[in-house]
């Protein structure tokens, strides 16, 4: 029963004709996610280094930063950097193609605020194990954000 086949030759031709018309009308490459942003990539790396440096200090029992009063300006500085990342990602959000990255930064910000809130509750410093476990979480977040940004290079040489 050739007439009942899903794509008989006339149907296949009609299907391809529709495809061709669609592509001719579009006339450009499909884009489902934003372009790679080198400045954002570098800023994420810098913020990750600063955050890791701070969280490592908090794991040292003798560090001054374990006092919340000493650490508070550092939290504010890092949260300011995270906010700058969000602004940069939003500037690259034409047609909402960078929304996933913006959402990632929001989750990172939320986690860093949770670390700060926990520290504020224990002015002489949260437990070292807490900071270590929190650092693991934040590290995975930074890695995920960078992985997606680098993937946006779309097959061009990785740096």
């Amino acid at each position, binding site marked *: 029963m050739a007439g009942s086949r899903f794509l008989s030759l006339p149907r296949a031709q009609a299907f391809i004709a529709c495809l061709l018309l669609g592509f001719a009308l579009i006339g450009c*490459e499909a884009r489902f996610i934003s372009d790679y942003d080198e400045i954002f990539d570098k800023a994420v790396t810098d913020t990750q280094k600063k955050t890791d440096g701070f969280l490592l200090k908090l794991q040292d029992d003798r560090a001054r930063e374990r006092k919340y009063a000493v650490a508070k300006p550092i939290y504010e500085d890092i949260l300011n950097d995270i906010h700058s990342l969000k602004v940069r990602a939003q500037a690259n959000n034409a047609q909402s193609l960078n929304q*996933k990255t913006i959402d990632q930064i929001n989750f990172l910000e*939320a986690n860093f605020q949770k670390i700060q809130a*926990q520290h504020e509750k224990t002015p002489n410093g*949260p437990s070292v194990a807490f900071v270590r476990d929190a650092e693991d*979480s934040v590290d*995975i*977040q930074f*890695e*995920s954000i960078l992985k997606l940004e680098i993937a946006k290079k779309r097959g061009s040489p990785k740096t």
Partner: protein
Amino acid sequence: MSTIDPKALLSQIGKAGLAAVGAQWPAMRDFASEELSKIAETALQIELDKKNGAITEDEAKTLVEMKENTLRTVWLTIDGMTDLTEEAAVNAVMGVVKSAINTATGFALL
């Protein structure tokens, strides 16, 4: 002017689309596997630290809340990589179609 062979074009479209998906898949699979394993390991660490008294109940609660945000961050990367895979497949198919049209018309129409 040559004509387009629909059957050959469909075959080329299928191959181009599958090749594009195949090229992206290993990176996505490796990332998902590595990061989800890390999340599982760190979740286990929280449980151990709580049992050993290394963290308080309140700290454990905060860490679990953080873990949820971390999982969502990882998931967004997987979702974004899926977008890139779909994009590559669509563009590969479009490339085949454009090439077929240009060959059939004898000049760079598209």
